[in-house]
C-alpha cells in the first residue's frame, strides 16, 4: 500500500446550484481567475511540505467548467510547486453537460487518467427532481464519449433513496450504468443535508427522507446486485471492478494518509493535524492576497481521537480496523465476539473487517469499542 500523500484541488464553481448539494461552490463564475491566482499563492505556501504526490484529485464544484487556459495555468501551478510520482492517479470530476470530445482529448493531453462523472440517475424524472442540468440521454452520450476517447478508468456517481424513487427505478439506473462497463461506481444514499434548500424543506416538513427500512433495502439490493456483477464493495458507498480501480485518492482520507487540499473549504491532513480553508472564495482570496494562509481552523488529534477516527473510518471500508485498536480491554473482547457472532464483522489477518451487515450500521460500531 502506498503512503505517498494525495493532492486535492477544490474548484468551487458550478453553473447552477443543485438543491440537495452541500459541497461548497458558487455560481459567480467571474471569480474563477481570482481563485486561480490565489491558488498559486497557496501552492507556494506548501511547496516543500509534502513528498511526491501519487494522486491528484480535481473536485468541486464542477472542475469540468475550467477553460483550457485555466486548466493549463492550474497544471503549471501544480507542476512548478509539487512533485508527483510517475504513476500518479489524476482524477477529475466532470458533469455530463460539459463533456465534448475536444474537452476529453484536452484532459487526456493534460495527463488526466481517471474520470468521475456525476450522473446521479438515468431517469429523467429523478433528474428533474434533483434539478440537474442534464438528462439521461445527455449523460449516456457523455459516457460514450469518455469511452470513445480511451478512458477505461472512469467511474459513475449515482444516488439512490430519492423521494418518489422505487427500488425498481433505482435498479434500472444501476443496470444502465453497468451497460457502460465502468471501472468504478459511487452509490450514495440521498441525504437531506441541513444547509441546503432541500434540507430546509425537510425541516419544514415538506420533504420526507426515506425511512430506515427503505434505506436498508436500497443499500442491500445495491450491494447484492453490484457484487453479483463482480464489483468489490470496498467502501460503504463505493464499488470497484477490480482492486486496482479503487480510488487511490479517496482511500487516503480513510486511512489517515497525508493529503493536501488546495482551494476554498478544502481540508488537509498531516502528522495528526487537520486544517481546513475558508468556506468562501472571497475570504480565501483575501487571505492569500494579504499573504496569509487561507486556513479557517485546525485541530491536532489526540491519540484517542485518532483511534476514534481509525475506527469509524475503518468500519466503513473493507480494509477494516486493526485488531490492536480494540485489544487490551476484556469488554471489547466480548463486544467483538458478539459482533462476530451476529455477523457484523469478521476477523482476518489481525484486522476487523465489516461485513455487508456491518456496513449497514457502520456508524454504530466505533463507540462499542469506547468506554
Amino acid at each position, binding site marked *: 500500500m502506498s503512503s505517498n500523500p494525495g493532492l486535492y484541488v477544490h474548484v468551487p464553481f458550478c453553473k447552477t446550484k443543485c438543491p440537495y448539494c452541500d459541497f461548497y461552490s458558487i455560481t459567480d463564475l467571474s471569480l474563477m481567475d481570482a481563485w486561480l491566482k490565489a491558488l498559486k499563492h497557496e501552492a507556494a505556501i506548501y511547496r516543500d511540505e509534502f513528498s511526491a504526490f501519487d494522486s491528484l484529485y480535481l473536485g468541486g464544484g464542477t472542475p469540468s467548467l475550467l477553460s483550457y487556459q485555466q486548466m493549463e495555468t492550474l497544471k503549471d501551478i501544480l507542476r512548478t510547486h509539487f512533485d508527483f510520482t510517475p504513476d500518479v492517479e489524476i482524477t477529475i470530476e466532470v458533469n455530463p453537460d460539459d463533456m465534448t470530445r475536444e474537452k476529453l482529448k484536452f484532459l487526456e493531453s493534460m495527463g488526466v487518467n481517471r474520470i468521475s462523472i456525476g450522473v446521479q440517475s438515468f431517469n429523467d424524472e429523478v433528474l428533474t427532481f434533483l434539478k440537474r442540468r442534464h438528462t439521461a440521454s445527455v449523460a449516456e452520450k457523455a459516457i460514450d464519449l469518455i469511452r470513445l476517447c480511451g478512458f477505461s478508468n472512469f467511474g459513475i456517481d449515482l444516488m439512490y433513496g430519492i423521494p418518489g424513487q422505487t427500488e425498481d427505478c433505482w435498479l434500472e439506473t444501476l443496470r444502465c450504468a453497468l451497460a457502460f462497463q465502468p471501472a468504478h461506481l459511487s452509490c450514495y444514499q440521498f441525504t437531506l443535508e441541513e444547509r441546503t434548500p432541500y434540507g430546509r424543506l425537510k425541516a419544514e416538513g415538506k420533504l420526507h427522507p426515506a425511512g430506515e427500512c427503505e434505506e436498508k433495502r436500497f443499500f442491500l439490493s445495491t450491494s447484492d446486485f453490484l457484487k453479483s456483477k463482480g464489483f468489490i464493495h470496498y467502501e460503504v458507498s463505493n464499488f470497484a471492478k477490480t482492486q486496482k480501480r479503487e480510488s487511490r485518492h479517496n482511500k487516503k482520507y480513510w486511512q489517515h494518509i497525508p493529503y493536501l487540499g488546495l482551494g476554498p473549504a478544502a481540508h488537509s491532513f498531516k502528522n495528526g493535524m487537520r486544517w481546513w480553508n475558508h468556506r468562501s472564495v472571497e475570504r480565501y482570496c483575501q487571505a492569500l492576497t494579504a499573504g496569509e494562509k487561507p486556513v479557517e481552523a485546525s485541530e491536532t488529534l489526540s491519540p484517542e481521537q485518532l483511534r*476514534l*477516527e481509525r475506527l469509524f473510518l475503518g468500519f466503513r471500508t473493507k480494509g477494516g480496523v486493526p485488531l490492536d485498536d480494540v485489544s487490551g480491554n476484556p469488554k471489547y473482547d466480548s463486544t467483538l465476539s458478539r459482533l462476530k457472532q451476529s455477523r457484523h464483522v469478521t476477523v482476518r489477518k489481525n484486522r476487523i473487517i465489516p461485513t455487508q451487515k456491518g456496513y449497514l450500521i457502520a456508524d454504530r460500531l466505533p463507540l462499542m469499542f469506547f468506554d
Partner: protein
Amino acid sequence: MKQIRNFSIIAHIDHGKSTLADRLIQYAHLVDDRQFRDQILDTMDIERERGITIKSQTVNLPYTSKDGNEFELNLIDTPGHVDFSYEVSRALASCEGVLLLVDASQGVEAQTLANLYAAMENNLVIIPVINKIDLPSADIDRVKDEIEHELGLDAESALLCSAKEGTGIEDIFEAIVERIPPPSGNTENPLTALIFDAQYDSFRGTIVSCRVFDGVVHPGDTIRLMAMGSTHKVEEVGIFRLKMEPEKELSAGEVGYIIASIKTVSDTRIGDTITLDTNPAARLLPGFKEVKPVVFSSIYPIASDDYHSLADALEKYKLNDAALVYQKDSSAALGHGFRCGFLGLLHLEIVQERLEREFDQSIIMTSPSVQYRFLLSDGSTVIIDNPTYYPDPTEIEKSYEPYIRASIMIPERYVGLVIKLCMDRRGVNSHLNYPTAGRVEIAFDMPLAEVIFDFYDKLKSITQGYGSFDYEIIDYRESDLSKLDILVNGEKVDALSTIVHRDRARERAVNACEKLRDEIPRQQFKIAIQGAIGGKIISRSTITPFRKDVTAKCYGGDISRKRKLLEKQKKGKKRMKIVGSVEIPQSAFMAVLKTDNE
C-alpha cells in the same frame, strides 16, 4: 452589652425571601454594590439554578435604628422544601421572631401556613410583610384579608415592601428592633448552644452554626456535644458577615459559628446542644430528634472500576451532609455500590447532582423505594427498603407500608382534579377545608410510595402551578404488596425491581415496560422488555433494532464533523450502564416509577 435581634424570613416559595435577604444585606453595607450578586445567600450552584435554599445560611447585620441605637441583627435563612422541615424547625428555634413574607398578588399559600405554624410552635413574634407591592396585580386588601382570616394575624401590623425595588426596607428594620424581643439568657449559666447547621470546609474542618442560649464560649474551651457525647477543643468562634469573622467569644443571645476539632459533619447532629465539658448544662435544649431517611435508592458507578472513587466521593460528600446515610450494597446487574437513605426525593436529586458535578462521578441511581415492613410466618418482622431483599412471598404473613398525611392547598376550581389524583394514588380519609372563599385545603392519607416520585410535579401541572403540597409521615398500614421484576432480553435486572401494591401491579408493569422502551436506546439487535411478578410475565414491550445507520459520504470535511458527532454520543454513553449486552441509560432506572399515562 450588644443589642441583638435574631430572626428568620419565612415564606412560600417564590414569594421573595432571597430577594428580601439581598436587600437587607445591601442596606447593612456588608459588601459594596459592585461585588453584590443576586440571591447572595444561596451559594451552591444547585441552589441558584433551582432557586431554592438547601443549606441554611446566617448573616449578621449591623443596624443603627432611627433613634440612634446600635443593633446586631442575625438573619437565619431556612431551607425551603418539605424534605428539610426539621432543619427549618431548628433554625426557627434559634430565633425570637420571623418576617412572614406574603406575595401581594399570590396571597397566602400552603407553605405560608405551614411555616407560620412552625414559627408559632417556637413562640416567635411574627411580623407579616406583604412583598411585591410593585406588581400591577398586587391586591393588598385581599392579602390583608387573608392575613387576618387565614393566618389569624393582625393585618394592620403588616408591613408593605417591594424587595425588588427596595422600598419599605427601613420600616422592616425598625419593626425588627421594635417588635422582636431581645434574646433572654444569662452569660453566668452553663453554656447551652443549639446547632442548627453544620458545613464542612476542607481547610477549616466542620463549621458549626449555632445559637447560644446561655453562657459563653471561647477559643480554647472544651465543648461537649450533648446528644453525641463527644468532646472537642474550640479553635475559633465568630460571626458570619458573608465571610467568617472571628470573635473573642460567643455569648448568650448570639448567633455565630464554632470551629472545633470536629472531623466530619456527621459527627454533629442538627438540633444537638453544645455545652462546656467542665461545666455542663443539666439537659439538652428541647426538640432534638434524629432525622430519619424516608426514601432509599442505590448508587452504582457506571464503570465498575470507579467503585473506590465513588466510595471516596460519598465519604467526602457526607462530610457536608449529615442527613445522607449509606452502606455498601451490591447488585447482580450493576455490581458494587451503595444503598443510600434520603430525606426525600429532592434530597436524593441534590445528592445525585452534587456527586456528578462537584465530585465528577458517573453514577446510576436505582428506582427510589420507601421502607416496607413484613410480618413473616415465623413471627419475626423485617424492614426492607431494597426490593432485592424482598422476602419469600410464601413466608409473608402481613405487609405494611408507610402512610403520610398530605396537605394540599389549591384554588377551588381544581378540587375535582386534585381529588381524582389523590384517589388514583390510593388516597383515603379525605378532608376538605375552606379557609377563605375560593381556596381549598385538602387533606388525604396516602401511601408515601405514591407521592415520592412524581406526585408533586403532577399536582403542580394539573393545578397550573397553583397547588402547594406538604406532608408528614403518620404511620404504617397494612397493604397488599408484591415485587415487580423487570427482565431485559430475558435477564432479570435486579436494579429495576420495585415493590408495588397488588392492585396497581399490572398498571405499573405496563407503564414500566413502556417507559423503558422509550428510555433504552435502540441497539443492533431486538430488545425484549418484560414485567413479571413471581415469575409470571404480566407486561411486555419490544425495542426494535436500528436497521441502518451509516452516513453516505465521508471525505475531507466530513471526517472532523463525523468525529465530533461521535464524541458527543460518546459523552452520552458515559451515562449508560451495560447490563448483559444492553446499554441502559441512567434515566431508565428512575423512569420505571414515572406514571404519566397521557
